[in-house]
């Protein structure tokens, strides 16, 4: 492992911050510059970073992380309903609830390792989902999802005389509305903060300990370390990240649905992390972005739009290209996603970040420094 100085870290962070905050500019040509998708990039980025703290560092593959996301969302919407439309109480409550929830589940699941741990977390998440969809409807509003309504108590807002006239008020941060680009910048700043915390964890002795759990748990135990508290802390931290992401989902779009907790949602964050590169700092965020991009942009193409795209070609070719591409977009976007998963994992074992690294090492080799290529995969 390369030792990095604090200064290098801050440089890294600054680059990251600029990249995130300028997303509206460089994503514009890709057709992804609109508030909802930008918010989703930032929020799922937080979710994936948190997941990576557990999976990337300790190697514990949780298949139930969506449960914490869902719990965070429910807690946030309840905070909006009961206390205030300001996001601060909602975010805090969501992180506390998700933290407690993950502590309870982690306490049980961390008794087992490997795939047994995965199945335990999966079991808890599926139980949460099934119950939230049916029996717990009074709390979760089941299929329809928990929503705000005009009759909500909003105790704090009412005591301070901030009352909504007309429609249902929108979540805000001391006046900054969470919809639109304002919501994106709020999420983006939180993403940068979360990234910074993850960076510090990664570089800290605590992070080292977590890596040691991944490499050889038994050896750790023989040397007298009790690894459980470390794994437990990582589990709770990543649960709180998920809770924060869930709360932000609810803040930018005030609705909490049960399907956020389904196993497919848990699987999604696993896929994001591996696709981007598990154990790397930026990889999970890239993976989250790629999957959300597929989901929102590829699904939106239809034949009419394809004709417009290929209209510069002669008629015969145009029709040919439209026929060839149609199965991969619109209702076929799942197919493209599946193929992308396979290609990435077959050709880039370390995820998309591996690709970046290979390109970088290609360039650095040209600069006649062969040993750097050997050093690079250390991260």
């Amino acid at each position, binding site marked *: 492992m390369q030792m990095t100085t604090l200064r290098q870290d801050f440089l890294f962070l600054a680059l990251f*911050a600029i990249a995130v905050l300028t997303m509206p500019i460089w994503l514009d040509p890709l057709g992804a510059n609109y508030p909802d998708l930008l918010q*989703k990039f930032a929020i799922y980025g937080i979710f994936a970073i948190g997941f990576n703290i557990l999976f990337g560092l300790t190697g514990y593959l949780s298949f139930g992380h969506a449960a914490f996301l869902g719990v965070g969302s429910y807690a946030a919407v309840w905070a909006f309903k009961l206390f205030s439309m300001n996001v601060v109480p909602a975010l805090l409550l969501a992180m506390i609830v998700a933290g407690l929830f993950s502590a309870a589940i982690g306490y049980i699941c961390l008794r087992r390792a490997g795939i047994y741990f995965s199945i335990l977390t999966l079991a808890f998440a599926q139980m949460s989902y099934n119950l939230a969809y049916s029996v717990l409807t009074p709390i979760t509003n089941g299929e*329809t*999802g928990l929503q705000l309504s005009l009759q909500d108590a909003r105790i704090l807002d009412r005591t301070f005389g901030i009352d909504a006239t007309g429609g*249902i008020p929108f979540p805000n941060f001391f006046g*900054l509305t969470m919809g639109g680009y*304002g919501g994106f*910048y709020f999420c983006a700043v939180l993403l940068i903060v979360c990234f910074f915390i993850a960076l510090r964890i990664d570089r800290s002795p605590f992070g080292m300990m977590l890596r040691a759990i991944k490499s050889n748990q038994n050896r750790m135990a023989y040397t007298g370390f009790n690894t459980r508290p470390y794994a437990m802390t990582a589990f709770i931290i990543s649960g709180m990240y998920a809770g924060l992401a869930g709360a932000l989902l609810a803040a930018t779009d005030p609705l909490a649905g049960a399907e956020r907790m389904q196993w497919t949602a848990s699987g999604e964050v696993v896929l994001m992390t591996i696709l981007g590169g598990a154990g790397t700092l930026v990889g999970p965020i890239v993976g989250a972005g790629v999957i959300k991009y597929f989901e929102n942009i590829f699904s939106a193409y239809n034949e009419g739009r394809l004709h417009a795209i290929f209209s510069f070609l002669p008629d015969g070719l145009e029709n040919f290209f439209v026929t060839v591409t149609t199965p991969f977009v619109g*209702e076929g976007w799942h197919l493209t996603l599946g193929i992308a998963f396979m290609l990435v994992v077959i050709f880039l074992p370390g995820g998309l970040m591996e690709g970046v690294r290979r390109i970088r090492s290609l360039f650095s080799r040209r600069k006649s420094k062969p040993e750097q290529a050997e050093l690079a995969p250390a991260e």
Partner: protein
Amino acid sequence: MKLFNVNRRRFLRGSVAAGAGLALPTIFTSASRAQGYCNEPTGSSVVLGFNVPQTGPYADEGADELRALQLAAKHLNGEGDGGMLNTFTGSQLQGNGILGKKVEYVTGDTQTKSDAARASARRMIEKDGALMITGGSSSGVAVAVQSLCQEAGVIFMAGLTHSNDTTGKDKRRNGFRHFFNAYMSGQALGPVLAESYGNDRRAYHLTADYTWGWTQEESIKATTEQLGWETVETVRTPLGAGDFSQYITPVVNSGADVLILNHYGKDMVNSLTQAVQFGLREREANGKDFQIVVPLFSELMAQGAGEAIKGIYGTANWDWKLENDGTQAFTKSFGQEYGQPPSQAAHTCYVQALLYANAVETAGTFNPEGVVEALEDLEFDGLGNGPTLYRGADHQCFKPVLVVQGKEEPQDKFDLLEVVREVPTEQVTYDPSIFGGELGDVNGQC
């Protein structure tokens, strides 16, 4: 976004100067500013959002909705044979687009999940500038997208959604539903059941364990009990159970002689297939023939259930075999375009698109305030269902409801249902206050 102007800059400057400096220019181009209402069209065209399930269990239904909506866009632009534009009485539509602007559309995938459906709708509104969102194949999605459209300041014309909540507890001023609901199913189906099966039946309900299932169970139970039926038991089944045998077998010795399946989609196909397999329909109970009732089903589900659907009673919003001008014009035009007759999901979406366009023409503006006013308490005819009222109090359409039965000898795979009766509008009309909820005000601001 009312409070957004002042604080945004302060917030950005305060927090991250470098990034904000680069990013500010794009904020100023954000589309919604300096307009009378959200996404006011300035060019020669207008964008509508067709948000249908393209993946997941309802993908086929969604594909059919999309076909119908694309056909509607064609007809509105004056292409093709005009379909129901020619039979729509009192219509202001001229086949030159809407208010002279060409109709364009964007499509998206709801995945039959509230989150995905809202993300897709937000893309249409924020990126593509859609003024109206329509489509969808489940009530959870309809309610979620409806409340989103209310917040976003555009109109929502619901697709297939049957829960009482859509225009009841969760109704919104910006949202409209043409499809019928569970309460109307109960009102329409009850008398037919009493005529065919008698007044002293004992019913056993299997209900999908989520909101739509519950509202349907409640509605059917209320009507059948009024007719003198007794409800033996109501059992909740998990969504997507696949094999329902453990819920079906207890029916046999429960003393019930009618099984009511409050399931939809794949669940309905599975539970009905299995109930028939367990021989329930050959059985006798309390000296009567055992019967199965599925209050809501569609042509696609009938295809999925195959033989099992024969003779089963249910209700429908519309059927392509109806003999009125609107239906015939639409069926012909749809059939010539796609080589198959339209489903009821396709019909409701097509009608919703036309009704929206007509309301805009009437109001003379795309502003949601005008559109809502034009749609509320609108009476129209010639769209396949006979005289119809869009009730202003809850934005629900009132029109005759069809009681259908699985055909014993279908001609082909599109001829699976037989219309037994058209139940008149008066019989299915109800007081809007019974389901609670509030419409709130129109919202036309992003």
